[in-house]
């Protein structure tokens, strides 16, 4: 489970909020019930107490204590009702005390005398006994036969039992309810998230090559639907502007070709003129060198615009990557020697992939050329191929000057130069690696670069092997 996901966080919030709500409700219920039950008990104690009072009031002055007890036993029957009754005549003569209650919830003989010796008015006290707390109503009264103190009590046990049951019920229900709500919330959020999930899956598959694809529109009639529609509109605009820029690139590189032919042709004829002075020849030659650079540039742009148009997907066949790398390295050998760089083509395992052999050769040439250019005299450039984890792997490694980390994401950008002054001297147009990337993306190749400034750079290309990309051509 993703702990940062919206669904998870929402579920946690649900759970916390619900727990707090349930806890408040639980506490409210617990105390409300406590109050209600105690009030009920108090009322019932008072009623009984009143009965005892009436007996004492009505009793003639000469009535004996045992007659009073008899009357209380008959009219109130405390044992049967699980009540505690004690009647004391002032100053401290015990008149009556009830026996063991039927439910044995307290021991009437062990109930201590009231802590207030002779209260002025009726009051209710909670008295703790060995068997448990008792709620006792203490009522003073006066009659013809003297002043009496009536104590009438009952065990609080049943009330506490109800409270315990309530607590138990809440303790059981609360976690279950919270868990249900949080889980349900998590599932609900995930479920309502699904259209977004589908949209992002589709969006991830849309590359610059197929901007014609569209996201699924979710018919929810809310912000989500609007989001999918506006994303699709944005894709359409993106496609149009891509088309425009590609069109422009292609047109510009085409349009430059005719004037370039004329400039080059005229200048070459001037150079060839036997009457020209050698100083003029030198100058024209220098202009011609610039023309050649322009020519390379235009050719590079044209290659890129053709790759953009999907040109590299036409002539595919089985290509032995190892052989291709070996023969290309062989052809580049002298160029490396010339710069005092050792070019090693080692461990060239035969890896067969599908692709456009000419274009793939261009990839290897560009990578090797780049590596040789930025490796100082005495350094080494190594090219390697192998089959790895179901992928064909091509690696070009150099012991060159390296690429600073902040430049790494840009090395494939058109016209990007890590160090403008230096690489222009090398005659690079800044398109070589862009061409590499374009060809690679047309072949479904993933490129990985590692570089350490001062110790070298490694380009790793992973080619999907034919078995993996069956069904697509």
């Amino acid at each position: 489970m993703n702990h940062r996901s919206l669904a998870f966080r929402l579920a946690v919030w649900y759970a916390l909020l619900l727990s707090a709500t349930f806890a408040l409700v639980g506490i409210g219920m617990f105390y409300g019930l406590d109050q209600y039950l105690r009030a009920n008990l108090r009322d019932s104690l008072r009623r009984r107490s009143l009965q005892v009072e009436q007996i004492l009031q009505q009793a003639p002055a000469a009535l004996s204590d045992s007659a009073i007890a008899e009357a209380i036993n008959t009219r109130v029957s405390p044992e049967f009702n699980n009540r505690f009754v004690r009647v004391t005549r002032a100053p401290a003569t015990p008149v009556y005390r009830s026996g063991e209650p039927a439910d044995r919830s307290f021991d009437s003989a062990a109930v201590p005398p009231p802590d207030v010796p002779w209260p002025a008015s009726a009051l209710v006290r909670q008295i703790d006994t060995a068997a448990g707390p008792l709620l006792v109503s203490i009522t003073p009264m006066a009659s013809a036969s003297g002043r009496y103190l009536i104590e009438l009590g009952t065990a609080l046990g049943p009330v506490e039992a109800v409270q315990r049951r309530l607590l138990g019920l809440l303790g059981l229900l609360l976690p279950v309810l919270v868990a249900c709500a949080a889980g349900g919330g998590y599932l609900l959020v995930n479920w309502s998230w699904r259209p977004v999930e589908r949209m992002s899956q589709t969006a991830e598959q849309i590359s610059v090559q197929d901007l014609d694809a569209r996201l699924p529109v979710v018919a929810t009639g809310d912000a989500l639907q609007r989001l999918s529609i506006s994303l699709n509109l944005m894709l359409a605009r993106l496609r149009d502007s891509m088309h425009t820029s590609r069109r422009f690139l292609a047109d510009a590189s085409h349009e430059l070709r005719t004037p370039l032919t004329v400039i080059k042709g005229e200048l070459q004829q001037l150079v060839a003129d036997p009457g020209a002075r050698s100083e003029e020849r030198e100058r024209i030659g220098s202009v011609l060198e610039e023309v050649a650079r322009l020519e390379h540039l235009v050719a590079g742009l044209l290659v890129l615009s053709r790759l953009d148009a999907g040109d590299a997907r036409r002539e595919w066949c089985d290509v032995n990557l190892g052989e291709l790398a070996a023969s290309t390295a062989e052809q580049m050998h002298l160029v490396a020697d010339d710069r005092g760089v050792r070019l090693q083509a080692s461990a060239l395992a035969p890896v067969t992939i599908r692709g456009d052999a000419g274009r793939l050769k261009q990839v290897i040439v560009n990578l090797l050329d780049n590596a040789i250019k930025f490796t100082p005299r005495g350094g080494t450039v190594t090219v390697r191929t192998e089959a790895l984890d179901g992928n064909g792997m091509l690696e070009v490694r150099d012991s060159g000057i390296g690429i600073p980390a902040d430049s790494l994401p840009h090395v494939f950008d058109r016209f990007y130069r890590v160090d403008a002054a230096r690489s222009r001297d090398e005659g690079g147009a800044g398109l070589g690696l862009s061409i590499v990337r374009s060809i690679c993306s047309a072949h479904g190749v993933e490129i990985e670069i590692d570089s350490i400034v001062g110790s070298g750079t490694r380009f790793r290309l992973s080619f999907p092997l034919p078995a993996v990309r069956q069904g697509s051509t």
Partner: protein
Amino acid sequence: MRLLIVEDDRKLAEFVARGLRAEHFSVDIAGDGIEGQQYLDSYQYDLLILDLMLPKLSGSELLRHARRGDSTLPVLVLTARDATEDKVTQFEAGADDYLTKPFDFAELLVRVKALLRRTPVARTDVLRVADLELNRLTQQVRRGSQRIELTAKEYALLEYLMSSAGRVFSRTMILEHVWDQSFEGVTNIVDVYVRYLRRKIDEPFPVELIHTVRGVGYCIRE
């Protein structure tokens, strides 16, 4: 020999015409498809140089028209597009050869001459420039009495240069003939190989044969 150039870019047409006239061809220039058609209908030409993108009547239509009139007329197509499919369409439409802009005039001249000859000339087995000798049968190179060992690429480069001694070959031409297009615009591979070649055939000897024409390329001559 009479040639027709149909090309809407006046300057390009004139520079090509000037070069061809210097080689003793007689050259007419038409600036659009309709004009080209009129020239073709009025005169007999030995070769047609045709730009595909023309105003009024497209190059392909003109090509079909020309083929209906004279099916043997050699046609060299100039194009600013060099995608493979374009080449295929051009050949289907009846072009004999094509050149992609920007081209070298030297290359155009080679193609024009090849098209006019039509039948391949008997290949000379031994090429000679001064005391340098290249034998195509034995693939041996000697200068004076000394035999020179060359690598395959060095041999191919020398053979290409010697195939037309005295002509200046541009780096692009050399690259396309001796290597392939993968190397275009990337390396100074041609310069490196020429340098190695010079070490073997020029430096040990008093007279240099391989000459650099700055900004253009290389040529081999006495």
